C-alpha cells in the first residue's frame, strides 16, 4: 500500500505531457491547463497581497482612531468631531488601498500601531463587512477555478492499452515457432465525445503467421447511447456470439488464461469463427427485477476466406450478402449471483476466394454458454454448433461443433486454471475445409496466472494438443507470458 500525502500542486504527468507537447509543437490543451494554473497562482498571490494590505490598512485606521479618540477625549471635543475624523481616516484608507504598493508608495513592513509610541497594541481586527464579502467572493472564484470540471478538449484523448511477450516450446498462436516471442502491443483509444456519443478504436501491433509485425485496426466503432439500456454501434466490432468473444479482447492481460481457445482465436491467428464483423450492432441490458437481461443484435458484411483465413470485408462486400445474428443472456442474482446463461445464433454466406470460381457456403451457427464469475471463481463453458450448407458444390448440409470448459480459481495473487477445448469440424464442409486451421482438434491445458501488481501478470501454461483428422499429430507445450496493461 502506498500513501500519498498531498503536497502543493506539481504533477509529474502534467509536466511530462507539457514537455512532449512542447517538443512536438502540439496540444493546445496542455497550454490551456498550464494557463489556468498560472492564473490561479497569480490570483492566489494577489489574494495574499490584498490580505496583507488590508491588514496593514486596518492597523493604520485602528491606530488613527485610537489617537483621535485620545486627542478628542483630552480636548473634550464633541462626538461629532470624532466621527468626522474617523470618516476622514476611512477615506484615506480607501484612497491608499487604491494605490498599489511601489517605490512612490512603499508598503510598510511593520504594523503602524507597533511603531507608534503610546498607541495600544493592535492585533488584526476584522476587515469591514464589504471587504469580507469581496474576499469571500474572490476565494470562491479561485476555488471554482481550481475545481472546475475540465472541458473535454482540455483533457485530450485518453489512451490506454495492453502488451504481452512470451517464451515457450512453441509459439502460443503459431506452433511452428519456438523460443521467445513478442505477441502484441495493443493501443486502446476511447476519445471523450458528447454525452451520448461513444467511440472505440483498437490499434494493434502484432506478430502474424509469417513472423512479421503488422498493424491492424482491430476495432473501429462509433456509437450512440440512447439510454442505459441501448447503444447502437457502427463500424468494426467483435462479433457478439457466445460469451468469450465480447468479454475478452486483444489485450491478454485482462484474461486469466494465457491465450484464447484455438477456435475462438482471432481470424489471423487461426480462429475458425468470424471474430470481427463490420456493420451495425445494437447492444444493451435491462433489469428484470433483481436479474439483468443482456441482448445483442447485429447485421454486417458477409465474410470471405482468402489465403485460408476468414476476412471480415472491411471495405464492404462485392457479392451483396450480409451476416446477422443475436445473443441473449441472463445475469442471475441472489444465491445465483455471478451466474450468467445465454444463447446466440448467427447466419452468413461465406465466399471462398481461394478457388476459382469462388465457392459459397451458408453458415448457420447456434451457441450456448454458462458463466460463473465471482470474487473467487471464473468458470466458463461455451459451445457452438454449425449447420453449414454447401451452396456451390451442393454436397448438402454439414454438422460441426466446437466448445470449451474453463475453470479458474482466484486465490489472491495466484489464479490457477484448467481448460478443455475441442473442435469437431466436418472436413466435407467447404467452410472448414477451406480454412488453414479448420482441422478438428482437442486440447487440455493447465496454467496459472500470477499477478505481479495491479497492471502486470505472469502466466504459465502447460498444454497438450491433438489434431484428429486432417493431420494426425499431437504436441505438448510449455508456455510463459508476461502481460501488462497501461
Amino acid at each position: 500500500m502506498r500513501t500519498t500525502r498531498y503536497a502543493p500542486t506539481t504533477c509529474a504527468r502534467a509536466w511530462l505531457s507539457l514537455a512532449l507537447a512542447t517538443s512536438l509543437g502540439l496540444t493546445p490543451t496542455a497550454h490551456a491547463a498550464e494557463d489556468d494554473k498560472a492564473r490561479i497562482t497569480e490570483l492566489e498571490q494577489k489574494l495574499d497581497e490584498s490580505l496583507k494590505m488590508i491588514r496593514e490598512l486596518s492597523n493604520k485606521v485602528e491606530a488613527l482612531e485610537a489617537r483621535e479618540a485620545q486627542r478628542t477625549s483630552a480636548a473634550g471635543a464633541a462626538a461629532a468631531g470624532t466621527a468626522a475624523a474617523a470618516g476622514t481616516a476611512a477615506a484615506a484608507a480607501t484612497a491608499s488601498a487604491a494605490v498599489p504598493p511601489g517605490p512612490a508608495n512603499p508598503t510598510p513592513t511593520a504594523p503602524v500601531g507597533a511603531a507608534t509610541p503610546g498607541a495600544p497594541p493592535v492585533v488584526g481586527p476584522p476587515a469591514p463587512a464589504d471587504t469580507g464579502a469581496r474576499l469571500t467572493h474572490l476565494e470562491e472564484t479561485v476555488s471554482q477555478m481550481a475545481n472546475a470540471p475540465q472541458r473535454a478538449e482540455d483533457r485530450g484523448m485518453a489512451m490506454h492499452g495492453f502488451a504481452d511477450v512470451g517464451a515457450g516450446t512453441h509459439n502460443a498462436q503459431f506452433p511452428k515457432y519456438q523460443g521467445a516471442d513478442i505477441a502484441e502491443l495493443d493501443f486502446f483509444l476511447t476519445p471523450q465525445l458528447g454525452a451520448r456519443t461513444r467511440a472505440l478504436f483498437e490499434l494493434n501491433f502484432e506478430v502474424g503467421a509469417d513472423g512479421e509485425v503488422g498493424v491492424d485496426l482491430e476495432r473501429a466503432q462509433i456509437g450512440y447511447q440512447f439510454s442505459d439500456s441501448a447503444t447502437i454501434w457502427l463500424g468494426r466490432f467483435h462479433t457478439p456470439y457466445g460469451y468469450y468473444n465480447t468479454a475478452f479482447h486483444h489485450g491478454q492481460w485482462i484474461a486469466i488464461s494465457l491465450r484464447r481457445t484455438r477456435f475462438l482465436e482471432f481470424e489471423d491467428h487461426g480462429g475458425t469463427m468470424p471474430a470481427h464483423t463490420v456493420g451495425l450492432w445494437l447492444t444493451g441490458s435491462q433489469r428484470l427485477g433483481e436479474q439483468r437481461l443482456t441482448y445483442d443484435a447485429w447485421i454486417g458484411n458477409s465474410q470471405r476466406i482468402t489465403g485460408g483465413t476468414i476476412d471480415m470485408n472491411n471495405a464492404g462486400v462485392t457479392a451483396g450478402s450480409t451476416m446477422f445474428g443475436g445473443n441473449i443472456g441472463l445475469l442471475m442474482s441472489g444465491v445465483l449471483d455471478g451466474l450468467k446463461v445465454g444463447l446466440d445464433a448467427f447466419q452468413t454466406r461465406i465466399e471462398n476466394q481461394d478457388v476459382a470460381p469462388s465457392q459459397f457456403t451458408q453458415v448457420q451457427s447456434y451457441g450456448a454458454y454458462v458463466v460463473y464469475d465471482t470474487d473467487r471463481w471464473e468458470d466458463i463453458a461455451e459451445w457452438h454448433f454449425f449447420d453449414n450448407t454447401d451452396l456451390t458444390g451442393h454436397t448438402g448440409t454439414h454438422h460441426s461443433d466446437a466448445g470449451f470448459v474453463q475453470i479458474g480459481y482466484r486465490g489472491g495473487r495466484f489464479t490457477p486454471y484448467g481448460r478443455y477445448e475441442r473442435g469437431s469440424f466436418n472436413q466435407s464442409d467447404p467452410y472448414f475445409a477451406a480454412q488453414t486451421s479448420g482441422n478438428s482438434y482437442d486440447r487440455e491445458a493447465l496454467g496459472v496466472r500470477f499477478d505481479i501488481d495491479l497492471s502486470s501478470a505472469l502466466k504459465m501454461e502447460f498444454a497438450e494438443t491433438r489434431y484428429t483428422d486432417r493431420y494426425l499429430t499431437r504436441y505438448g507445450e510449455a508456455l510463459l507470458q508476461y502481460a501488462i496493461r497501461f
Partner: protein
Amino acid sequence: MLAVLVVTLWAAVPTPVSASATRLTDLPSTWVDDRGQPFDLRSMYGRTVVLSMAYATCHRVCPRTVDYLRRLQNEFDSRGVSAEFLVIGYDPDSDDVAAWRQYRRTRHLTRTNWHFLVGARADVEQVARQLGFEFWKMDQHVIHDGRVVRFDQRGVVVSSDTVGGL
C-alpha cells in the same frame, strides 16, 4: 509504420489526473444510494469520511479495496472513531441501485455508515478526476487502480492511499 508508432506513442501519454487537494464540498453533491434514496454529499460535512470508487462486477481490484475498507472500519471501531464510508460506482450504466444492493448483500456489508452511491456519468468522472482515481472503460470492464481517500471533519483530504496492492 514507424510514423504510426511515433504518433501512437505520443498520443499514449496518459491524461494527467488532477492530484490537487480537493475538499469534500468541492465534489458533485447529488447521488443516489443503494437504497434508492437521494444522497447529498454535503450532508457528510462535519464527519470523518472514507471514500473509494468501485464497480460491482470487478473481481480483481475491488474485492481488495473492500477488504481494506473493512480493516479500516475495524481499526476505527477499536479506536472509537466514527466515520462514513462512501463507495462511488465507476460505471453508472451497469452499477445501478439494484446492483449495489446485491453487492452489499452477497458480501455482508450491512453497516449503516457504508453508502454505495450511483451518480451521473459526468459526476463520476469529475469525482475521479478531482480525487485522482484513474480509470477507463473497455466494454463491460473498468480498468482501474485501487484508491481510498480520507477526509477530515472539515471535509479536507488528509490522505490518499493506493490499495489493492498485491
